């Protein structure tokens, strides 16, 4: 037992990590109402994406405000084929991953020549350009998006094949948890590979790295592809969860910013930073949104349409928008007082 209790995962004792995972597994069995489950599903989803983003943005120091592209590729690929031809997402997810890698290469090769702010700007412009294209592309529903045909039979095999569950959020919850754990595991594992040293060398001094013989573009691309693949898997999950895809909720600058902020506010370049960021920001904004923007749909939690209704409310931003104000305030406070993110603050207390 002491072998277990003495081990630490990036500064966090291993038993604490195991307790954390156990708590996440137990959570939906204790909190059985849909709202807390929904909040935690979003937290896990954004935790997985923030962690994936951090592989490129934190470890390699390439700040991308364009990860909505890879999120969108996941959501749109499975959504398009299911909505039009009722093809199961099980058959189309490999295609989504292939498209994601292709996009990463096409976007990465030219933009990785840019440094610092120029790289960030390029990532913003690219995601916005793709947003505009998709918003006007009739075949994928243009600005209205894709509405999923709902699988209504209710049998388990059919539900699994369609990857839709309407009786319970548990399958979604555990899928999100799986994505989250997998993403954190990949991010943790990379730290023991030579790749992580190449990435840190690139982040700290690109020219010095080059002069030592490190093929800078190649390793940036490897980091982007790993990051993009996880983000695309999250996009697939998202589409199956909300069963409604529109450009604003997938390929937008806002979503791209949210993914980046989770890692930046939690603590960029660290394993636990994006996790912490997600567990602070997502519940906080969700609660603020529900309290202050009137986003709880009437009759929420009863019947099939409730989820859709809820999402429509969420996407419309409800009435007040005080939640966005609070979000901005949090960003300002952390930027002003804790530029290393929340994790940097906790480390200082230690």
């Amino acid at each position: 037992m002491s072998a277990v209790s003495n081990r630490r995962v990036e500064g966090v004792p291993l038993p604490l990590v195991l307790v954390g995972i156990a708590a996440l597994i137990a959570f939906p069995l204790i909190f059985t109402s849909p709202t807390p489950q929904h909040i935690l599903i979003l937290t896990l989803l954004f935790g997985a994406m923030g962690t994936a983003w951090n592989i490129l943005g934190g470890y390699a120091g390439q700040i991308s405000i364009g990860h909505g592209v890879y999120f969108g590729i996941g959501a749109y690929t499975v959504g398009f084929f299911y909505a039009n031809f009722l093809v199961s997402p099980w058959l189309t997810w490999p295609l989504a991953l292939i498209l994601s890698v292709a996009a990463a290469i096409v976007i990465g090769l030219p933009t990785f020549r840019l440094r610092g702010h120029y790289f960030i700007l390029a990532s913003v412009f690219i995601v916005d350009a793709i947003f505009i294209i998709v918003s006007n592309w009739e075949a994928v529903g243009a600005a209205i998006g894709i509405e999923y045909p709902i699988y209504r039979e209710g049998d388990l095999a059919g539900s699994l094949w369609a990857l839709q569950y309407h009786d319970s959020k548990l399958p979604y919850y555990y899928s999100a948890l799986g994505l989250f754990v997998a993403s954190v595991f990949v991010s943790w594992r990379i730290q023991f590979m030579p790749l992580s040293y190449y990435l840190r060398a690139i982040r700290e001094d690109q020219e010095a790295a080059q002069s030592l013989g490190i093929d800078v573009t190649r390793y940036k691309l490897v980091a982007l592809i790993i990051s993009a693949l996880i983000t695309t898997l999250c996009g697939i999950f998202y589409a199956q969860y909300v069963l409604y895809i529109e450009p604003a909720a997938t390929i937008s600058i806002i979503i791209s910013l949210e993914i980046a902020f989770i890692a930046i506010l939690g603590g960029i370049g660290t394993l636990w930073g994006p996790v912490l960021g997600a567990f602070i920001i997502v519940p906080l904004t969700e609660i603020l949104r529900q309290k202050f923007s009137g986003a709880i749909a009437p009759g929420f939690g009863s019947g099939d349409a409730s989820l859709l209704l809820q999402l429509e409310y969420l996407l419309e931003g409800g009435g007040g928008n005080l939640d966005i104000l609070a979000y901005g305030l949090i960003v300002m406070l952390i930027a002003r007082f804790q530029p290393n993110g929340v994790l940097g603050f906790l480390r200082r207390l230690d």
Partner: protein
Amino acid sequence: MLEVRDLDVSYGDFQVVWGIDLTVGPSEVVCILGPNGAGKSSVLNAITGLAPRKASAITFGDADLLRIPTYEIARRGIAHVLERRRLFPTLTVRQNLLLGAYNPDAKRHRAETLAWVETLFPFLEDRHNSPARVLSGGQQQMVAIARGLMSRPRLLMIDEPFLGLSPLMVDEIRTVITRINADGVAILFNEQNVELALSLSHRGYLLESGRVVLTGTGEEMLGSDLVRTVYLGV
């Protein structure tokens, strides 16, 4: 071994190096001298492709360096220690060194090379777990040189090895440069202090405003009127 013919370097419209010829033979120590802004660093950076360059030839052995990207030049046997050391500050001393042994050949001999650089700079072993940023300037310079050596180069290029160092450190680096050369590595370095540089070089090039104004062996250059009146003030 290294041959540079008719090298121009321009940053946009601003040309800083004009038609320089330069060679370094096997196991030679060669210095590039000149005041601030003479173009010394630009010459080194142009050789490894870090500065925009035009030349009729830059070759190293049978490799055409004009056609090889920067990251591949290290594999061909040139290690370039950049100006102001440029360590990876949050990585440890050991991690910095290991990153120097990136190319496949260097990786195979990593343990052996590490032992060699740790005899050249014994403090590397004691401080192997310290982040590079906490070292003194002199120690950082030694890590930078050692990191360059980890690629097992035939030519080590050092940009301003003595910049900002205490007289004690200057002596130490000077000794080490001689020892590295004695182990068969050719060295090309930049320096403003003419006397210091020529005292440990076989040959030198004196640059002024981006042009070579004098070249020769150390003794020839120390004896020239130009060096005596302008740089040594005797």
